[in-house]
């Protein structure tokens, strides 16, 4: 079937203004823009929560425990989302929780990237035995349930912020290896890589300058999604008591604390839950939009 005819880039002609092209693209990807906004808020909160929060997240006051959120009858305006069982302001704790989630999410993904992409490059470019070994490893790890692996690691290392990052990173890298390997194998046979070989460039140069930059779009999209997953997994581990320990305000910890009060003081679990949901949503929307942006570019080239 004939494709929709694309116009030939005539370099010397004036294009419509960059601004109008950008605005048009942003409308096209409005969901992604929404996601980006959400994430921007998250980052902002994470950075400036001491200045934005109304209270101290650790300050306990038994006299003020289990107060209702401000929008309900009997709620007080100074505790917008109510207080928890120890009298701490829920809103403040949620805002501080953003820090934990973002730090864990980003750090874990960076660890996954480093391990996963390196292994994927080796497997995809060199093939043979290296590929056989690495692929076997990847398949084994992907077959294992994440919880089991993470629990074992935490049992060995102990529960703390640092160890959660390690646990998430070391269990999450296989998917990066898989994607990197496939993309590398595709790129390895592309003519510009052959050209680089024929120009007598070293293997290191070819991998770093020619193959890796062309992997970035695929990996970037995967990384954004994995950040969301890492945040959710951190919440899960903390909920199970395997991660962040109270009194540190992680959303997962708050879920665990709020579990006993679900019936009457539902806000203790609901709002942290919503925070997890909004973060994951924002990241996924952004990731989808990134994929849209990146895919046509990939196809065009």
């Amino acid at each position, binding site marked *: 079937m*004939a494709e*929709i*005819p694309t*116009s*030939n880039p*005539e370099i010397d*002609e004036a294009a419509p203004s960059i601004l109008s092209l950008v605005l*048009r693209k942003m409308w*096209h990807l409005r969901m992604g823009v929404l996601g980006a906004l959400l994430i921007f808020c998250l980052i902002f909160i994470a950075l400036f929560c001491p200045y934005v929060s109304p209270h101290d997240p650790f300050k306990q006051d038994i006299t003020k425990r289990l107060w209702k959120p401000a929008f309900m009858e009997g709620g007080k305006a100074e505790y917008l989302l109510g207080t928890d069982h120890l009298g701490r302001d829920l809103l403040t704790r949620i805002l501080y929780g953003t820090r934990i989630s973002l730090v864990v999410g980003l750090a874990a993904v960076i660890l996954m990237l480093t391990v996963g992409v390196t292994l994927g490059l080796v497997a995809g470019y060199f093939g043979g035995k290296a590929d056989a070994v690495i692929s076997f490893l990847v398949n084994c790890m992907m077959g294992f349930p994440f919880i089991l692996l993470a629990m074992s690691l935490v049992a060995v290392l102990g529960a703390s912020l640092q160890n959660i990052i390690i646990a998430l990173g070391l269990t999450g890298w296989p998917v990066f290896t898989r994607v990197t390997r496939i993309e590398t194998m595709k790129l390895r046979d592309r003519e510009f890589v052959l050209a680089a070989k024929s120009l007598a460039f070293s293997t290191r140069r070819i991998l770093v300058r020619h193959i890796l930059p062309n992997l970035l779009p695929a990996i970037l999209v995967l990384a954004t999604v994995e950040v969301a997953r890492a945040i959710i997994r951190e919440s899960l581990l903390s909920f199970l008591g395997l991660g962040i320990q109270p009194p540190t305000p992680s959303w997962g910890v708050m879920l665990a604390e709020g579990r006993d009060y679900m019936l009457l003081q539902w806000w203790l679990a609901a709002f942290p839950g919503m925070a997890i949901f909004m973060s994951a949503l924002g990241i996924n929307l952004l990731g989808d939009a990134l994929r849209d942006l990146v895919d046509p570019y990939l196809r065009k080239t």
Partner: protein
Amino acid sequence: MRESLIQLKNLTTHFFTPEGVVKAVERVTFGIDKGRTLGVLGESGCGKSVTALTIMRLIPDPPGKILEGEITFEGSDLLQLSPGDMRQVRGRDIAMIFQEPMTSLNPVYTIGDQIAETYVIHQRMGKPEAFQRAAEMLRLVGIPAPERRVHEYPHQLSGGMRQRAMIAMAMSCRPKLLIADEPTTALDVTIQAQILDLMLGLQEEVGMAIMIITHDLGVIAEVSDDVVVMYAGQVVECASIETLFLQPRHPYTLGLMSSIPQLGRKFKEGKARLKEIPGLVPNLIRLPPGCLFQPRCPMAFHTCTQQRPPLFSLDSGHGVRCWLVEKEARNP
């Protein structure tokens, strides 16, 4: 006595994309007579494939839109038909074959399934009878051992075989017009010769008209009775095949003819550099004012930059869209 089978008039199809409006086909007018072959010559982006898809009304909407024009086929305007009626025309009266048989044949159905489908749908045949007819069609298009092949999948056949299977599919309802969009471009040259021979043989047998779309001037020379040359969405020259080669008038046609290497030419005329056409095909979103070929035309003069030339009529149905022929033209 030549009878007109299909007549296009002022056909205009544009695509509305985020980057702008792609004027793929602009006021295209030509006709095909019964039992004759029309060659549509042009390079990528000239609108030849979009014209064919417009005739078949297979333009995706959005982003494409058929804005204007008439397609008169057997007394009715194809653009006015209901979708149901158009579906009847497609496949039964007008059939189309494409360049890449691997992607135009469904890989998960056997060849027999796909050919038989047309019989089942358009002629309401039962499956077993349709399959038998399918095998006959495969034999007709020169596929050896058709009874066995009819149960094979597209990937089990070579490129030439797949193209023959596509032709079998297209021919199954004895169409009056076969549109072939670059049917041999992806094939080896010896296979191409076989396929072209097959198409012309079938044409003689069945009396159908062929519209062959290609960028290969050699193929045009061997199979066409009449030729339409397209550039940037417009018809720039139309003539019989003899006239086109003996008296080409449009600078683009002339440029094409002297820029393609021809076997043996350098021995007859001495080794000379090919006369290239400078520049690039225009951007279909931002077309130049005036004649669309003018930026690359060695014979352009002032009017060419100001006004788009109409299709002037010279003798015996020879049309040229160029200001240079204005004086000799018959129409005002």
